[in-house]
Structure formats: structure tokens, C-alpha cells
């Protein structure tokens, strides 16, 4: 029996390849995700090990606000210079160096623009000489306060050379220095992991990066020969007490790396999610293929039954075929996944600027998941066809069976039940439990329900769609063909539906959110001019505070307010906070009446946040900012969440203790009747020295803010492209099999005078009708799902429902195009058919 199975498997290479390809693509995604995260994980390990290679022990003050890796850069708490001396005296310490190093040194390149970063920080540090892995490329370290040195990464990105005057933004507004040196790292590297570094003299570094002199961010310790870092660490800890964190270089490397790995596992989960969608779609394709294979093998299977094979053997025969396909596909998918992983890692290295990726490795998880996913998915998809195969009566071998169209009642009832269950899950997930897992399960079950209902829907819809093409005989024949096997058409279309539905759903949600936020901003923000910039790297763009006061003096300006932003710990909980120079003015620019300037010990909180935490006006709370001591603030006022930026508003005084002591956004409201064009050029002039930001009118600001939503849509489109590609394979598969099955018919049509071009058109129409049907289902289901989510988010500020007709039309158009493309090979095959062999009897 096994040999017979394998032989029939080989005899059906085409189907093997097509159905296998779906699994290959899915497995590729899964194993690619594992390979990428594993390799990047090791890249980070190497990176941080290297970064801390010359540090035996490091001493830092405990941060006032502990920030997780990838949640922004932690603001270091300054160490007094005396700590350096204390550490130097500990037994076993060979050398203790006071280091200044903090994110936020932004170099202005020779083109006048701030050098951007795609993630790695832009460190400003004090020059403490070359360590073991640094190499001077040109010049020397800074000796005078007017001098700086940069690493080669910065020099290249900014296009600057030794001797140039270079402007740098720090905590202080723009300062200009003379570049006296450029350094690199061993093995000809420009940086460690793409980090941009600027070295000042120690006092300048302290002033610029920490806002005060006589303090450091870290004491770097080298131990005497014969001493272990661990022993010295413990002695330093004993000497300094627990206000300090004393760690070995190895510990620091491990901790930093672990932080990045958390972020990576998030990335991994996203990739796996999309892989799941791709595999889900793949199941449709495989199910369809096996159904057709079983239908075509009816005689063969019946003969086996007649010759004494049991039902179980027939089932096993089909499942063995599935296992074989699954295994082969898993192995190929794993290979492709390793390739994809390598590509992603390489891309990551390029994008992050100078990151040196570790050698691509294949973790056991990748191999294991590839095999399990490949085989399980294929076998699951083959179970139904296998059961059907086992029900073939032996007598079928003797008859010329025309498989009668089975009634659709059962499948329709099942579809209605499953669909209702999915909708119920979705409803509970959205409105009741607010659980993402329930929502996802609901979406999945709904898809299955709709897929089961599709055969019934397909009859009228396909007939209707087909009318569009019925003006020619080939078109009419194509339409009739696509309505011929509702189950097959339905499954093929349903596979396409899944991808399109998800893309449409996300588009609906994103467009609605965008529209809602824009409408809200349009409604609330009264300021006509906004000063802001696009963030690159972990630090938000900032501008000189003086811009605010100068802008206030421009004639025609009614009020100007700046907003500062950072993280703080409030009553023991870390949260994002904002501060403003003057709440009364900010409220005016926002059009929120009734708020007055905050005193130094007052704060304002959003109504929603106050309610959540059980606070009222007048209650007092402990606020720890990134710098300085703990302060008590009294709630002076509350405001509606959407009437001011953020949930917390602190007074002007608090900004001195922010990690980033410059404003990130500025609002300018004009006197009534003053034209924006009259004032905007002057404000632009004011921010000329703050190249990270620009002054724009309100509508450009809103457009800029909502750009993120479009990015999400694009990303989802790209990632779901794979699922759609698999669905397209399904269309190709179905068509190829239809052509194969209808050899005799095609032969007849050719014999009675259907031309080659007409034959191709006939197959193409069938393909386009199936594809557009699938896309139509997808757009409708996706719009439904999106609408449900948007309605559920009504309370979260997404109040407008936007149905993206243009994009939905685009998806339909693309589906038609996909239909044409999918038909290319099958239709060529149909047109090349040898008329004679097609009609010759036996």
C-alpha cells in the first residue's frame, strides 16, 4: 500500500509542488523568524560583550526613574566626583575613571541637518583616552573646551573632517566646536553597533550632557592583575553602600543584551503571527488540493478497496501522502527560512548603521517548529479528504462515475453555526472581556464560518460577477466554469478572502483612528502654528527654549506654550509625563478654557487618569523625575484627556529635572484675524538654529502626526502579502487542475473552432471571477471586522468610522490583476492542448 501511495504521489508532481509550496512559504516564515531572532540575539550578546570588554567593574548611581531597554534611554543619575576618589582607594582597583556618557549629543552635519539614528543612541561623553579596542584614525583627543573628537560613524554620517567647525546639540542649545580627532575600533569598525559618539573635554561633557559640572555618570574600574572583577565589585559595594549599582562588565553585558532580547521576542511573535495567517491560508489550499486528488483518484482508490484494502488503509494512504508532502515542504521551508533569516539579519545590520551581525545560526527551535508545523498543517488539511476517500465504494471502480453535486445544506448549516460562534467570540472579546486572545480567536473562527458559507454565497455572487464578462463566448464559458464546482471555487476564494479581509480590517481601523485623531486635533488645537520634529532614535527632537519667549514677542501672536516630555515615577508607578512653561497659555493654544498657570508644587491630571487612580483635585502625590529629589505635587486641576497633550501636566520648574531639559513641541496661537502666512516665516526663522524641528501650520502638523498609521497599513500589507501570495498559488492550483480535468472539453471547444486566444481568455475569466469573488468576500468581511473593532473602540477616542473605499476598490482591482496573472500558466497550458489527444477516445 505504501509503495502504491508513493508512486501515485510521484505521478502527481504538479499538485505536489503547488500544495507543497504553500507549506514551504509558511514554514519559511516560521523558521525565518526563529533564525532571525536567534542570530540577532547573538549579535547583541557579542555587541555588549565587546562594549563592556574594557570595563572590569562599573559603578553608577541608582537611576531615579528606571526605564526598561527599548522603552527609551534611561537618564543616568549623576555621581559626585568624590565617588571616583572613594572607588580608587578600594583594594584591588588599579584605575578608576570618572566617565560622562549620555544619549542626546546630536551632531549637525555638513549639510546643516542633524545626523539621524535608526535606533542606536547618540552618546555625548568625556574624553578619557583610547582604550584597548579604540584606534585613533586621525588627529587626537580634545584637549581644550572648544574641541571635540567623534567616532568614524559620526564623521562619515555628518561628512565632517578634522579641522572643521562642527555644531552639536546637547542639553544645551547649539554649540560649535573644532573637530580635532576621529577614532574607530579594532577590525576596522567605525563604531560598536552603530552608536554615534562625540567626546568633549570633561567639563564640557558634564555641562552639556548632565547640566552641571563636577559630576559623572559612571566610574569605570580596571582591577589589578590577580584580582577578579567579582571580588573587587563586592569590596566596592561594601564601601559605597546601596545607593549605587556596582556591576562587573560581564553582568552589564548580559543585562543589556537581555533587554534587547525581550524586544526581539516581541518582533518574533509578530513574525510568527503573520506566519500563522500564511499557514491558515495554506490549509485551505492543501485541503482543496487533496480533495481534488481524491476525486481524481476515485477509480484507483475504489480499485484498491475492491482488491481488499480496508477503509483504514485508504485513509492511511492519503495521510501518508500528506506526511510526505509535509516533510519535504518543511525541509525546503526550513532552508528558505534560513535564507530569509540571513537576509533580514543583513538588512538589520545595514539599517542600524554599522551593526556587525553574528554568523547566521539555526537554533533547534527553528528545525523543530519547521518540521512540526509543516507536517501537522498538511496532515490536518488532509484529514477531511482522507475520510471522504475512505467512503468511496468499491463498485466505483467498475463504473464511469460522474460525482454528483453534493447538496450544500450540511456545509451551510455548519457555516452558519461556526460563523455565529465566531461573531459571539468576537463580541465578547471586543465589548465584554476586552481580550485580544478572544478577539483573535473570534476572527479566526469567523473566517472558518464564512469559508463554510462561501459555497452557498458563491452561486449568486459568481453568477453576478460573471455577467461582467459575459459579452463574449469565451467569457461566458469562463463564467460558467467558475460556477461549476461551488466548493472548489469557494475554498479557493476563501483563501484569498483571509488575507484581503485582514488587510481591509486593519485599513478600516487605522483610517478610522487617523480620521478620529485628525478631527479631534482639528477640533481641539487652536494653535495655528506648531513647532515639532520627527523622532529618529530613542530621543525625541527638541528645540531651544528661548524660541518660545521670542515667538511670544512677534506681533500678532496671542499665546505661545511649550511642552516637555519624559518619564517619571508617580506614587511608585512609572509613567509618561509632560510639563509646560505655562499651563494657562497651553490651555489657550489648545482652546481649553478654565486652566490657570501651575505653581511650582502643583500639577494637572486628566479626568480619566484621576478616575483610574482614585485621585481628586487637592490630593497630594509623590513624583520622582529623572533628576533631582522626590517632590510632592498637589493636583490643582483636571482636564479631559483629549483637551491637552498627555495625562499629566507638570509645572515649568519641573522641566529642570527632566532628562531632556528642552521642549519637544511648541504651540503658537495667533490673534484673531491674523493670517498664518504673516507669522509663520518669522517662527521658522526662530527655529533655524534648532535643525531637529520645524515650524508648520496645523494641517501639516496633523498630517505629520498621522503618518504612523499609514506606516502600519503598509507594514501589514507587506506582511500579509505572503498570505495573499499563497492564496494566489491556490488560484493557480485550482485552474491548473480544472484545465487538466476538462481536457476533453477543451479539446472539443478547440475542435469546433475556439481559437487559442479565446481559450486563454476563457481560463482567464474563470480565474478573474474566482479572484474577484475572494477579494469581494475579503473586503466585505474585513470591513465588517474593522467596523466592529472601531465601534468597540468608541470609548477610546476612535469616534469616526472611515471605510476606505479607495483602498477597497484598489484591493478588488488588484485581485482582478492577480486573477489574470494566476491564469497565465494554466491558460497557456489550455491553449497548447493537443486537440487530437484530447478528444481521441481512449
Amino acid at each position: 500500500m505504501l509503495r502504491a501511495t508513493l508512486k501515485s504521489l510521484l505521478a502527481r508532481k504538479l499538485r505536489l509542488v503547488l500544495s507543497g509550496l504553500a507549506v514551504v512559504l509558511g514554514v519559511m516564515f516560521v523558521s525565518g523568524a526563529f533564525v532571525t531572532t536567534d542570530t540577532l540575539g547573538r549579535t547583541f550578546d557579542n555587541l555588549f560583550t565587546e562594549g563592556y570588554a574594557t570595563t572590569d567593574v562599573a559603578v553608577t548611581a541608582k537611576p531615579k526613574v528606571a526605564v526598561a531597554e527599548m522603552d527609551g534611554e534611561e537618564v543616568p543619575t549623576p555621581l559626585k566626583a568624590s565617588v571616583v576618589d572613594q572607588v580608587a582607594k578600594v583594594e584591588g582597583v588599579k584605575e578608576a575613571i570618572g566617565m560622562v556618557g549620555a544619549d542626546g549629543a546630536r551632531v549637525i552635519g555638513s549639510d546643516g541637518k542633524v545626523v539621524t539614528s535608526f535606533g542606536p543612541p547618540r552618546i555625548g561623553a568625556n574624553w578619557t583616552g583610547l582604550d584597548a579596542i579604540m584606534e585613533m584614525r586621525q588627529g587626537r583627543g580634545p584637549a581644550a573646551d572648544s574641541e571635540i573628537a567623534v567616532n568614524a560613524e559620526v564623521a562619515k554620517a555628518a561628512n565632517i573632517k578634522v579641522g572643521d567647525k562642527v555644531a552639536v546639540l546637547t542639553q544645551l542649545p547649539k554649540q560649535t566646536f573644532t573637530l580635532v580627532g576621529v577614532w574607530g575600533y579594532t577590525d576596522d569598525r567605525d563604531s560598536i553597533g552603530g552608536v554615534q559618539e562625540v567626546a568633549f573635554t570633561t567639563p564640557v561633557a558634564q555641562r552639556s550632557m548632565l547640566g552641571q559640572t563636577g559630576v559623572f555618570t559612571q566610574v569605570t574600574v580596571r582591577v589589578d592583575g590577580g584580582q577578579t572583577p567579582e571580588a573587587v565589585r563586592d569590596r566596592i559595594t561594601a564601601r559605597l553602600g546601596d545607593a549605587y549599582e556596582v556591576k562587573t562588565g560581564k553582568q552589564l553585558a548580559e543585562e543589556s543584551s537581555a533587554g534587547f532580547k525581550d524586544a526581539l521576542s516581541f518582533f518574533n511573535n509578530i513574525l510568527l503571527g503573520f506566519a500563522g495567517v500564511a499557514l491558515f491560508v495554506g490549509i485551505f489550499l492543501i485541503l482543496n488540493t487533496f480533495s481534488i486528488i481524491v476525486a481524481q483518484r476515485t477509480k484507483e482508490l475504489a480499485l484498491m478497496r475492491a482488491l481488499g484494502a480496508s477503509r483504514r488503509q485508504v485513509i492511511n494512504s492519503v495521510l501518508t501522502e500528506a506526511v510526505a508532502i509535509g516533510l519535504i515542504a518543511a525541509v525546503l521551508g526550513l532552508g528558505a527560512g534560513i535564507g530569509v533569516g540571513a537576509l533580514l539579519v543583513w538588512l538589520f545590520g545595514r539599517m542600524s548603521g554599522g551593526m556587525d551581525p553574528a554568523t547566521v545560526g539555526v537554533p533547534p527551535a527553528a528545525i523543530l517548529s519547521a518540521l512540526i508545523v509543516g507536517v501537522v498543517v498538511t496532515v490536518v488539511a488532509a484529514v477531511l479528504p482522507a475520510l471522504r476517500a475512505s467512503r468511496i465504494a468499491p463498485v466505483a471502480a467498475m463504473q464511469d462515475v460522474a460525482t454528483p453535486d453534493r447538496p450544500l445544506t450540511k456545509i451551510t448549516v455548519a457555516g452558519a453555526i461556526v460563523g455565529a460562534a465566531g461573531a459571539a467570540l468576537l463580541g465578547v472579546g471586543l465589548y465584554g472581556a476586552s481580550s485580544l486572545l478572544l478577539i483573535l480567536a473570534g476572527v479566526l473562527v469567523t473566517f472558518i464560518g464564512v469559508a463554510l458559507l462561501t459555497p452557498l454565497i458563491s452561486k449568486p455572487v459568481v453568477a453576478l460577477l460573471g455577467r461582467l464578462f459575459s459579452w463574449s463566448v469565451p467569457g461566458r464559458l469562463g463564467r460558467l466554469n467558475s460556477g461549476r464546482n461551488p466548493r472548489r471555487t469557494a475554498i479557493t476564494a476563501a483563501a484569498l478572502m483571509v488575507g484581503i479581509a485582514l488587510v481591509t480590517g486593519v485599513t478600516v481601523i487605522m483610517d478610522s483612528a487617523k480620521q478620529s485623531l485628525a478631527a479631534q486635533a482639528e477640533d481641539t488645537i487652536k494653535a495655528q502654528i506648531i513647532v515639532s520634529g520627527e523622532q529618529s532614535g530613542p530621543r525625541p527632537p527638541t528645540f531651544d527654549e528661548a524660541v518660545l519667549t521670542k515667538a511670544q514677542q512677534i506681533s500678532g501672536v496671542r499665546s505661545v506654550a511649550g511642552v516637555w516630555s519624559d518619564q517619571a515615577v508617580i506614587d511608585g508607578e512609572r509613567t509618561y509625563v509632560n510639563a509646560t512653561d505655562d499651563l494657562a497659555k497651553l490651555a489657550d493654544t489648545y482652546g481649553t478654557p478654565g486652566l490657570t498657570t501651575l505653581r511650582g508644587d502643583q500639577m494637572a491630571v486628566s479626568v480619566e487618569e484621576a478616575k483610574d487612580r482614585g485621585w481628586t483635585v487637592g490630593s497630594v502625590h509623590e513624583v520622582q523625575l529623572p533628576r533631582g529629589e522626590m517632590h510632592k505635587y498637589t493636583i490643582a486641576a483636571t482636564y479631559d484627556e483629549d483637551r491637552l497633550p498627555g495625562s499629566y501636566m507638570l509645572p515649568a520648574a519641573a522641566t529642570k529635572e527632566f532628562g531632556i531639559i528642552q521642549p519637544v513641541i511648541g504651540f503658537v496661537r495667533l490673534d484673531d484675524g491674523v493670517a498664518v502666512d504673516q507669522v509663520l516665516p518669522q517662527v521658522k526663522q526662530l527655529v533655524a538654529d534648532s535643525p531637529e524641528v520645524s515650524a508648520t501650520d496645523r494641517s501639516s502638523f496633523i498630517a505629520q502626526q498621522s503618518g504612523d498609521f499609514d506606516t502600519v497599513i503598509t507594514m501589514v500589507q507587506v506582511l500579509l502579502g505572503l498570505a495573499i501570495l499563497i492564496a494566489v498559488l491556490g488560484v493557480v492550483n485550482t485552474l491548473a487542475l480544472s484545465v487538466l480535468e476538462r481536457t476533453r472539453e477543451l479539446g472539443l471547444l478547440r475542435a469546433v473552432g475556439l481559437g487559442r486566444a479565446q481559450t486563454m481568455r476563457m481560463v482567464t475569466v474563470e480565474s478573474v471571477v474566482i479572484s474577484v469573488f475572494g477579494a469581494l468576500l475579503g473586503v466585505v468581511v474585513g470591513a465588517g471586522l474593522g467596523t466592529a473593532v472601531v465601534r468597540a473602540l468608541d470609548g477610546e477616542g476612535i469616534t469616526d468610522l472611515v471605510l476606505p473605499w479607495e483602498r477597497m476598490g484598489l484591493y478588488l482591482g488588484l485581485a482582478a490583476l492577480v486573477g489574470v496573472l494566476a491564469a497565465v500558466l494554466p491558460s497557456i497550458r489550455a491553449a497548447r492542448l493537443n486537440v487530437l489527444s484530447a478528444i481521441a477516445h481512449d
Partner: protein
Amino acid sequence: MNGTSVAARAEEVWKVYGSEEARVVALRGVSASFGRGRFTAIMGPSGSGKSTLMHCLAGLDTVTRGTVHIGDTEVTGLGDKALTRLRRDRVGFIFQQFNLLPTLTAAENIRLPMDIAGRKPDPQWWDTVIETVGLKDRLGHRPSQLSGGQQQRVACARALVSRPDVIFADEPTGNLDSKSGAEILSFLRASVREHGQTIVMVTHDPVAASYTDRVVFLADGAIVAELDDPTPETVLEAMKSGEVLV
């Protein structure tokens, strides 16, 4: 027989399949003419080349050497486009397996070649054809709702309705019981006698052959005998005498 009264003609037609050792010669220099308005049967044992001859005559297969004419048109040497048009406009087919499109109704199947050509059937002729094949009340049915005999009658109507120069019928009664077969054959003969249709039929059934005006016997790729105005007995006689074994 002069040129204008010949519907299809083969001259010195050779058909060779494969090459070298696997060479099979299906037709060896066959020359035959099929008169306009005549019903001709091609008979011969399996492998005699009778189907190949028909395929070559109908432009479904290419010849290795020699020429084939349909009317005045030389079929040999035509490209796919011209061949397709020739089949569409000037040739009709009736197959053993009926070969109807299951998605179309009987009427649509009958009209199919005309639809493909973008022509309208002559209403009077249409009525005549439908009446002769007796399908008036079955026109809206799909092939799966028709009996074998009815399906073959649809196929016959399809071949007739476009008034082709010649209809090629390949064992048209091979899949039918003798009663349905007899109906089809009478009907084909009637269309020749009453409407001047030309029909060339491949068969191995002497009874079927007896409905025709003339029988051409093939054996081993060559014409070995001819018989005018056959009866089942004369056909059987011809088959028994000599190498004409069916």
C-alpha cells in the same frame, strides 16, 4: 467526379509517427475523394489508420507527406489560426463520446460553434434541424439530464446547424444502444439525402456502414477496397473476402 463536387480529398497522404526504430506508419499514400452530398463510411480493423485518415482530413492532425483539401482549400500547410477557423466555419464533428459542454444547455451546445464564430443561425434551418433531431422539448436541458441517444442527437444538431462543407463522425453510435444508434444513423442519412449534407463516418460496424452511400475499406494504412450502395450483407461479404478484417 469533378473538382467542384468533391467536399474533401486526400492525395498520396502519408502519416508516420515516431522516428527510427519506434517508427509507426499509420497511412501509406492514401488517396481518396469524398463527394459533396454523399454519406461515406471509412471502415477497417483497429490500427488500420481509419481514425488517423479522418483526423488528417478534418485538419485535426498534420500529414507527413501528401495533401488534403476541404473543398478548394488546401488544409495541409495551414497555421493554427487558419485551421481553427476552417474547423469552426467549414467542418462539423460528431464524436463517439458526444463531447457536450456540461455547463451549457442543449440549445447552447448546438449554437456553440456559431456563437464562437459570432454568427447567428438561420432561423428556418435551425427549426428544421431541431425538428429532425426531435429535441424541441429538450432544448433547455443540460447534458446530464439527457439520455445518451439524446446527447448524441444534440451533438448531431451542433454539427449540422452551421451547414458545414463536411461533417466528420467518429464512431457516432459506438456508445449507444442499437435503437438509439439506428435513430442517429437514419437521421444522418436523411440530412444527406434531403438537405445535401456531406458526411464522412468512421465505423467498424457493418450495420452502421450500410446506412451510407459508399464504404472505403482501410487496412494497414492503405485503401484496400471500396463498395458503393452497401448493405450489411455486402459489407460483411467484403470484410470476409481477403484481408479486409474488422
